[in-house]
């Protein structure tokens, strides 16, 4: 009898803690999802302007999306979108190549400059990344990349040029590939290049996907570098500067709901990429060859 009572009270205690935990998690989840929910609501709101009088819109419309893509006279969103896409594709190709080659060298090859290079990368990482931004602008200007269509080249260089410093995650991944595989390949007469291209790369799909996606996402989410490099050349703006400008004082009243629509348009593909990538990210951290 007593035992039954104790069991019941334990069960009840468990039930109470579980309920508390679930209520707490729901509250937290609401806090975390609230801003996202709100921007989706705003993107369908019919009344313009940033000053809301009620939380839920009074009427709903798709006009915000329509005018985002058709009203190109002041802020040309479709053009910004193509600009960003072009820049993202090229900088993604270059930086993937840079990251993979550097991390392979750091992980598998032993040479004189290796430790020095790693220390250098660590020291460079301690400087505020845009401290040299103004200097980068003048360097690009002095080789004629600051005007007209060359701005795109300049942005590609800015996003991918120093990618060789971001080797930590990929190096960690390569470190987990057993060295025995390399040695077996050497015994079969492979050169180092063949080991890299025929043994390591095929085993590294997760980290390649991860590198490709992160570098592809870079230009979509950065706006500081883009702002400094583009200056007033509105023709070459990326979406990030475009969205930022929509919230500036002279545009905010007319463009606020369009900003929300633009934010939704950008966020959906990036969110999908991210959730897809997250699997590779955890795989990448846990290693290539499972025991």
């Amino acid at each position, binding site marked *: 009898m007593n035992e039954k009572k104790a069991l019941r009270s334990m069960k009840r205690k468990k039930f109470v803690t579980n309920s508390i935990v679930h209520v707490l998690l729901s509250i937290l989840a609401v806090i975390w999802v609230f801003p996202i929910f709100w921007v989706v609501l705003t993107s369908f709101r019919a009344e313009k302007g940033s000053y809301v009088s009620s939380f839920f819109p009074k009427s709903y419309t798709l006009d915000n999306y329509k005018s985002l893509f058709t009203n190109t006279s002041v802020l040309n969103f479709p053009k910004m979108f193509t600009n960003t896409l072009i820049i993202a594709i090229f900088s993604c190709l270059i930086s993937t190549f840079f990251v993979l080659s550097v991390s392979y060298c750091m992980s598998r090859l032993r040479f004189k400059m290796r430790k020095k290079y790693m220390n250098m990368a660590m020291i460079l990482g301690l*400087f505020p990344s845009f401290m040299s931004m103004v200097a980068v602008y003048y360097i690009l200007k002095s080789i004629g990349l600051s005007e007209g269509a060359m701005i795109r080249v300049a942005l590609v260089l800015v996003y991918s040029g120093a990618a060789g410093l971001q080797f930590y995650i990929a190096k960690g991944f390569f470190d987990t590939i057993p060295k025995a595989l390399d040695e077996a390949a050497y015994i079969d007469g492979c050169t180092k290049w063949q080991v890299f291209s025929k043994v390591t790369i095929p085993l590294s799909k997760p980290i390649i996907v991860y590198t490709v996606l992160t570098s592809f996402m870079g230009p979509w989410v950065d706006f500081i570098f883009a702002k400094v490099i583009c200056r007033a050349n509105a023709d070459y703006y990326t979406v990030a500067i475009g969205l930022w400008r929509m919230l500036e004082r002279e545009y905010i009243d007319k463009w606020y709901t369009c900003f929300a629509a633009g934010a939704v348009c950008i*966020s959906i593909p990036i969110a999908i990429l991210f959730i897809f990538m997250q699997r590779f990210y955890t795989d990448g951290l846990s290693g290539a060859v499972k025991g």
Partner: protein
Amino acid sequence: MANLFKKHVNEFPSPYTVKNAVKEGSIVTKLSMLILGLGNIANKQIIKGLIYLALEVSFIAFMVMSGAHNISMLGSLGDKAAEEVWNEAKGIYEYSAGDDSLLILLYGIASLFVAVGFVLIWVSAVRSAYKADYLKKNGKHINSFADDIKDLFDKNLHKTLMTLPMLGILALSILPLIFMISMAFTNYSKDGDHLVLFDWVGLKNFAKVLNFSDSLGQSFWSVLGWTLVWAVFATGLNYILGMILAIVINRKGTRLKSFWRFCFILSIAVPQFVSLLIMRTMLQPSGAVNVLLQNMGLISQPLPFFTDPTWARVTVIVINLWVGVPYTMLQVTGILQNIPAELYEAAKVDGANAVVTFFKITLPYMLFVTTPYLITTFTGNVNNFNVIYLLSGGDPTPVGSTAGKTDLLVTWLYKLTIDQQYYNIGAVIGILTFIVLAIVSLVTYRNTGSYKNEEGFQ
């Protein structure tokens, strides 16, 4: 501290050094110190020799054409101002081209880079000549050009793979950084109209920034203090709350684990600048949060989220939690599952409750494993530009000051350079940020296991 200054042992000794070339090299080798590639050409490595020679010729041509002039101008940084000149033929005043100190500095530093690069090429050429000479004397095989190419994909693969990334880093990271650092020693600012012509001023800017009695110095120390407070809070709170969240989601009784995880991950998946801009508009005096609270009758006046210094500081820390906690959750979930279950069972037997197990088992274990991660996060938070700039923009800013109450060193740096054109002070701030971070992380990082025993798991 001791191993910071550990003596380096050369792991890759080579007999083909410049010193040996001077001591033991043949006359051809010694001549190739003047005419690069001569030693290679004499030993039938004609293409390699010609490449060295071509590099030398182009370097000399560059130096004669502009390099030497660029470097010589570094000392004065130019002093010829643009002047109005009467043009007789056109009948108008024209501006004569004056010196632009910024370009002089940039070209000078770039030329110095080229010169250093040439020294490296020279060393490699002399060594290569000596090597060919040495191999020939000992009757060994001398690599043909085809052999060299083959080596680039085998023994010297690192050279092939590292060249382009390294050039990128040199041009877009190191060169601009040195350019910026040298600005810290000039008077390049709108102060005293030095935006076109400026001079070296030595350590004067540093003295000004570090001086307690100067208004700039006072701003610096208060911004530095807030930056450190911010970094400690942002790192520590994110770490602990993210870990608690991960534990709560992972505990046995929790249902719908992947649904909760998805809710939190959703906020990372949205680009940071989008979610931060949304937050900013939501927290304005007439933004969604204030409207909602006023409609519910909870407050009569809008809350001063970004207008009151204390409110603003708390707001940015709290919003940074919103941004950062899901990240920590994502990253620590895997590590948490690695903590040996026996530890928890033993604690349970001893009658420890959840709070005690967290502080006695989970936290110490996690701290042990994730110290490098914590250092990176701390560095990231000191340099956390996005959160501050997009949320509060550093505001509220006291009248007459260049730094706002929520400005970090980085956002202040940005404002000083981009908005207010105090380039020299901005550069000083950047250097000081670097020094603070370097001291904190170098000492900690070099004492962690992952640095000392890098190949422990291979």
